[in-house]
């Protein structure tokens, strides 16, 4: 634990010097502790006092920092995530206000940014079960549907988001996502007949995509903050890309994000319809229920392959972790869900 304490002390000193420059007034870190979660990203809760200047006062912040070593092919850099968060905030999305970003690894060892710390619970199991959140759960489908409509309305060019990855012109976004998962699965070599059956079906049933939008990429219970007042904010903007809006509409329906409350398709808190209807009303975009079903299946495949790939990071020594190791045996749950769907007449 001594190492961890030294880490906190060093973080505190370096952050104070960075903020004193960035905020234009002497900054003091009052409190800093690591937050749970994030296999690939590190998050800290940080309280800061800035003595003078335009941003004088106390700030409750979250610091997001890259973890050493791991580079994810599909995720944004901290600088890019910061730019996306800015665009979301400008578009009125309930998201933490982004404050300072630093791409220079000399400052804290790795790139990081600081954003406002919002109240609320992020842990999926608690959001689904906590009696104090009964009223908030009733509001969630509508609130999340409306927030998603705002995210999908972000114009990339206006906000300098041209770096966002997306499907090549005239290509089908679903088939692109599917090809990535299929390639990742087959690269591993381990045979998975259930996943092969799913890939085969998905290859021949891909829906047409009418328009691509800015897709959040990990929009679900577990990545939102919920308090007794309702939805406080949307988190985890590192997988934003251009794609089919149905990708975001189906992801929160995937069984893995129902946190044990499997009977309620929308994140274990509600049926899917109130969420889809709220989104359709707010966005003015027709929601194709068949495309939602398709993307939910594709979501199960992606998360199955995601679990296997995460376990590989442990197995190949890239990041020894019992949590990553455990995911290798989790893939069977998504395989079961896929097989159930494929077995329906």
């Amino acid at each position, binding site marked *: 634990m001594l190492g961890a304490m030294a880490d906190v002390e060093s973080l505190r000193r370096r952050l104070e010097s960075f903020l004193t420059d960035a905020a234009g007034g002497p900054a003091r870190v009052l409190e800093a502790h*690591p937050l*749970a979660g994030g296999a690939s990203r590190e998050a800290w809760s940080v309280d800061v006092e800035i003595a003078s200047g335009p941003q004088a006062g106390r700030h409750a912040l979250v610091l997001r920092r890259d973890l050493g070593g791991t580079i994810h092919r599909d995720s944004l850099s901290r600088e890019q995530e910061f730019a996306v968060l800015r665009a979301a905030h400008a578009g009125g999305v309930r998201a933490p206000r982004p404050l300072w970003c630093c791409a220079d690894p000399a400052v804290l060892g790795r790139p990081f940014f600081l954003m406002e710390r919002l109240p609320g619970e992020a842990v999926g199991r608690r959001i689904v079960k906590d009696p104090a959140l009964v009223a908030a759960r009733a509001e969630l489908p509508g609130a999340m549907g409306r927030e998603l409509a705002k995210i999908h309305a972000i114009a990339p060019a206006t906000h300098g988001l041209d770096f966002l990855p997306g499907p090549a012109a005239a290509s089908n976004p679903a088939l692109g996502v599917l090809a990535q998962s299929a390639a990742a699965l087959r690269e591993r070599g381990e*045979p*998975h*007949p*259930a996943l*092969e*059956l799913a*890939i*085969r079906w998905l290859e021949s049933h891909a829906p047409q995509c009418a328009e691509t939008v800015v897709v959040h990429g990990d929009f679900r219970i577990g990545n939102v903050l919920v308090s007794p007042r309702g939805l406080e904010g949307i988190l985890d903007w590192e997988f934003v890309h251009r794609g089919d809006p149905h990708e975001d509409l189906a992801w929160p329906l995937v069984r893995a994000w129902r946190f*044990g*409350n*499997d*009977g*309620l398709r929308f994140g274990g808190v509600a049926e899917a319809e109130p969420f889809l209807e709220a989104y359709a009303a707010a966005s003015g975009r027709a929601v194709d229920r068949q495309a939602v079903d398709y993307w939910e299946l594709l979501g199960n495949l992606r998360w199955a392959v995601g679990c296997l790939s995460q376990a590989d990071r442990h197995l190949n020594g890239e990041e020894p*972790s*019992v*949590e990553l*190791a*455990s995911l290798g*045996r*989790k893939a*069977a*749950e998504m*395989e*079961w869900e896929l*097989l159930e769907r*494929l*077995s329906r007449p």
Partner: protein
Amino acid sequence: MHDRPTALELIAAARGHLEREVLPALADPRLRFRTLVAAHVLAVAERELARGEEPLRAEWARLQALLGRADGPPATAAELGAAVRACEEELCRRIRAGEADGGSFRAAVLHHVRESLLEKLRVASPGFTDARG
């Protein structure tokens, strides 16, 4: 022959230690979570060991029938594992080639995969296949 405790009993002892003595003493939420996961993976290993070799033998026999093969039964556990893997690879190739797109082979494949998944989940997530709401 090893003395008791058996491998299964040793793992169970380690899991009991994590659950009864380590977890109550942990305040750091990240460490608590990882320790819960550690206890969970030990429970998975215990269930797998308790099932023994029989499920893999059954999977091998199912694959022989499904793929129309008549291989001699593997003698050792290592040979059995390799034989099942080779059959599963052949099955995957045939699915990719479209052979399981319809008809009686599809029905047989769905049935086989279902049996295999029931066994995987019995070990990895007991109760998952009957959980509904």
